[in-house]
Structures are given as structure tokens and as C-alpha cells.
């Protein structure tokens, strides 16, 4: 458990279980029905202070108030261009030689 105290108005992420497995649609694959329907959303913490794992309220980017379990403070974007794939470098070399053959 992260002991860091997170203050009011901090930009955070919360997690909510929207439907338990038994509340889900009957018309979905077994793999999906075996697990809950969950959601994540970002917003400003409305509680005076909280810790990761606490039930909190937030105000989203458009001012909606949503409650859920605090899971992150100042969440960032971590997607990248990924590690190099040698196959793509190989394709690049092939395309260059094809281009030279066309000229």
C-alpha cells in the first residue's frame, strides 16, 4: 500500500466496478462474464486527503462528480513507439532495394 497522502484538487485516476459478473449481460462470452465490468476515469480529488486504495470522489475534466477507488495520482501517458523490431528494419532494407530496382 502506497502511504503517500494525496491532497484535494490533485489530478488522480479512480477505478470503479460497474457490474459484478452476476449482473452482466447473459449474451456475452463466458470469459467476459466471469469477470466484472470495470472503469477508470481521471479527475480532481474532492476529498481533503486520501491514499491509494481509498474510496474517494473526484470531479472529472467536464465537472462530473464520480466516486471510486483511488488508484493513481498525477497519472501519465506511458505509451511509446515501442522497442525496435528487427523485422521492420529488414523490411526497410528490402523496400530500398526494390525502389532502386524500379529506377
Amino acid at each position, binding site marked *: 500500500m502506497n502511504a503517500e497522502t494525496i491532497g484535494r484538487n490533485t489530478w488522480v485516476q479512480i477505478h470503479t466496478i460497474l*457490474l459484478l459478473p452476476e449482473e452482466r449481460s447473459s449474451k456475452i462470452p463466458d470469459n467476459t462474464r466471469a469477470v466484472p*465490468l470495470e*472503469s477508470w*476515469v481521471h479527475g480532481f480529488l474532492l476529498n481533503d486527503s486520501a491514499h491509494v486504495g481509498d474510496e474517494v470522489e473526484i470531479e472529472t*475534466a467536464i465537472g462530473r462528480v464520480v466516486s471510486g477507488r483511488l488508484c493513481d495520482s498525477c497519472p501519465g501517458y506511458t*505509451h511509446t*513507439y515501442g522497442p525496435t523490431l528487427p523485422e521492420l528494419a529488414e523490411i526497410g532494407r528490402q523496400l530500398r532495394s526494390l*525502389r532502386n530496382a524500379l529506377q
Partner: protein
Amino acid sequence: MSSSAGTYEAVMARKGEIIRRAVGIDYSRFESGSIAFDYEGMMASTGYNFDDVRKIQQLYGVGDTPLLELRNITALARRYAPPGKGARIFLKDEAANPSGSFKARRAATSIHHAGELGFTGVITATSGNYGAAVASQAAMHGLDCIVVQECYDSRGIGQPEIMEKARKCEAFGAEVLQLTVGPELFFVFLTLLEETGFFNASLYTPFAVTGIETLGVELTDQMRELTGSPPDAVVVTNAGGGNLTGTARGMCRAGARDTEIIAASVNLVGLNMADDAHFNRKSFTTGHTGFGIPFTTFPDRSDVPRSAARPLRYMDRYVTTRQGEVFYITEALARLEGLERGPAGNTSLAAAFSIAQEMDRSQTIVVQETEYTGAGKHVQPQLAFARENGIEVRIGDPREEVPGTSIVLPEDPAIISAPDLDLKDLRRRYIKHAVTFARERLEQAGTTCRSHSPLQFDKEDIDFLSAETRSSLDTVESMLRETGCRA
């Protein structure tokens, strides 16, 4: 609201009234017979004619994108084509739209209309480029925006492409609600519409689909200017069917009545889009058969009662490509043409590369979209993610690719192909779905109808099904008889 009013069943039971209020269209006024509805009447009911739509788009920087000739990719295709074959390939660079894809066209009229009606915000349910388009247009109009995304599997793992789209929506000031896998996303969407009173910026309203007609008109006019005539063929990446429907309608409006309209989807056959275990085993989140085939054979499965996207009415041909081929052609577009674009938008380019080789050298083929690229939404992170999730990624023969198991990048572009789906089979499947739909409607209306009793279809229904499937009246009647219905 009491808690029982918020259950899945209770909310779904109110979906008709929620949608009617959130779209401002009473769909029942267009309906007749057991299945028929007045499609053109619905399309004309928006209160915006084509010139209005174009003006709105121009006011908000949407459309008027460049059409580029892909000379080097054409030369490469001709290398593998039989003598005299190898059509000129052109590309409509839709990534030049404000939100980075053609979806800005789809959002423009919807968001304008929401503002005119006095809505203070809009909601859309999408993991694709449409979210960014709605968020961008909402920002321009000073409206709030919520985007509901299907984003993660039950391990909390999401594809880098979807992560990037979430980032872009938030960059435009939208609230992004990220969900785990499951069609109950629609339930969440309805709950939010009720809670906020926002406008449903659906992909499938007449506003949205009319917005794409400008793309068809522009590309026809641009081809006339560049080559003297409309293209001989246009290839459209097909998922929900709106891109194809709007483009084809626009081309028809511009007088391009002889152009072959070709749908293309990435082949993900065998993967179930609603299955938690399959969710991260695909490397395309849209433009694939998992949406393309269900929406072609039953367009009214969308978030509005009657979809304005009805691709079977317009397609002359429907081909598939493989994930590895689309990734390869994305690399080729960057390396040979100097255009770095997102992979999903290049589905139709992979198909066009193969189809051009069947066509005469004097002919032309247009790939009608590109999409933006960036971190996450790019060949490298998408393939790396696939590999991390146990998908075999290798160079070889793409015909050996098994969706969900392998991605095979072609060892030679000569083997890129675009196999045809059987349109007759898709039409039969459409009729089967239509019969089920009509039966469910009867049952919902409380009409006595045992599930095995034959449904009656009158002349209006048969005419409608004939237009929907581009089949003769006799063919429709015979397909209906196959399902056990009286025509």
C-alpha cells in the same frame, strides 16, 4: 433514481426513450411494414442539405484534404502485375483533418446540431478515431464531451493504439471513461446520457453519415481535375459501414456512377470482439471483419434504432487483407512515398495495392483515407504489443497468418493479396438478421407471434430488402423463403 432503476435490465429497457431524447430523431416515423423504413426520408430529415454540411465543415477546418498520387507504390505494383496491368493508385490524405482522420467529417454536423439544439455536451462511445473527432469538434463549439472507450482486458492491459486515442481525447478537454471488454459499454453509455442530458454523437445518425458525403464529392472532383474523370475504383476501409456509405453517396452525388466501390477489412475471423481473452490478441482495433461483417449483415446493431450507415446498399465488392500485409504497406507508404500514417487507415491501401494489379494501366484506383500516427498508434508499438501478448510476429507468407495466433509480414510485396468475400452469402446473412429483427420487434410490440410462426412481409418490406441487398425482388423472396418466411 432508485438503485433498481439503474440495473442493466432496467436501463436497457429504457433505451428507446433515452436515445430518442439524446439524438432528437423519432425513428418510428420512418418505419412501416414488418421491417421497412424510409431510409432516404430519414437521410433528408436532418434539416441540413449538402451545401449546409459543407459550409459547417469548412467553418471548422474539416475536409478539403489533399489527394495524392502514389507514384512509387504504383510502380511497385506494376512490377508484379501482368503486362498492361497496374492501375494508378491515389490516396485521399484524411489525416490532414483537425483530429487526424476522416472522422472529423462525421463529427462536424453532429456537434454543430447538438449546439443548435441547445445541448451543453456530447457523448460518444468509441475506442477509435471518432472519439478524438468528437472531442476536437466539441472543443471548437465550446461543448463538454465524454468519450466512453472499451479499453482494457480484465488484467487491466490495453492496446497502445487505444491508449493514444484516450490521450488525444483528453488533450481536447474530454472526459474519457475507460472500460473493460464487453458490450455492456452500451449500458454505461445510456446511463451517462440519462445522467448528463447530453447529445448522443452517434457514428450512425444521418448527421454523421451525411458528413462523409463531402469526402466522396471531393475525391471525385479532385480526380476529375487530376485525370479528367472520376476514378475507376475506390477502396474504403470498412467497419461500421458509415465510411463506405457516406463516400459512395457523395460520389454518386458528384456523378461518379460507374466507379466500383470496394470495401476492405482486416481479416480477424475467429476472434470474438466481446471475448475478454481475445481482446488483446488482435492488432487492429477497427477496420476489421469483427465489425465489418456484423455491421454489413445487420446495420441496425448500432447505438441508434436505425443506422444511417448501410454499406450493403453501396458495395460492389468486399475484400479482406491480413494484419501483416497492412503493417507492411504502412512501412512502404513511409519509405516509398514519404508519408508516415497510422496502420489502421492503410487497410484499404493494402487492398488497393493488390487490386491495382488486376486493373489496366490506364485505370485509376483511389484509397479514400489515411489516419494520423503517433506513439502507440504506429506499426512498431502495435507489433511489439502483439509479441508481448504471445502473438507470433514473423516475416513469411501472410496467407499463413492466423488471427489471434500470428502476424505474418510478407517476405515479398508480390504476395500481398485481397481475397474477396462472397457478397451473395453476406446478402443471405443480411436477410436472416432482418427476419430476426422483424420478429423481435413484433414480440416487443406485444403482438401475438409464436417464434416459429412465419412472418408476413408486404410489398414495402420486399422493396426495402431489395434496396438494402441490391437484389431483385425475386431474389429477396427466394432468400426469405429460405428462412421460412412468407413473402
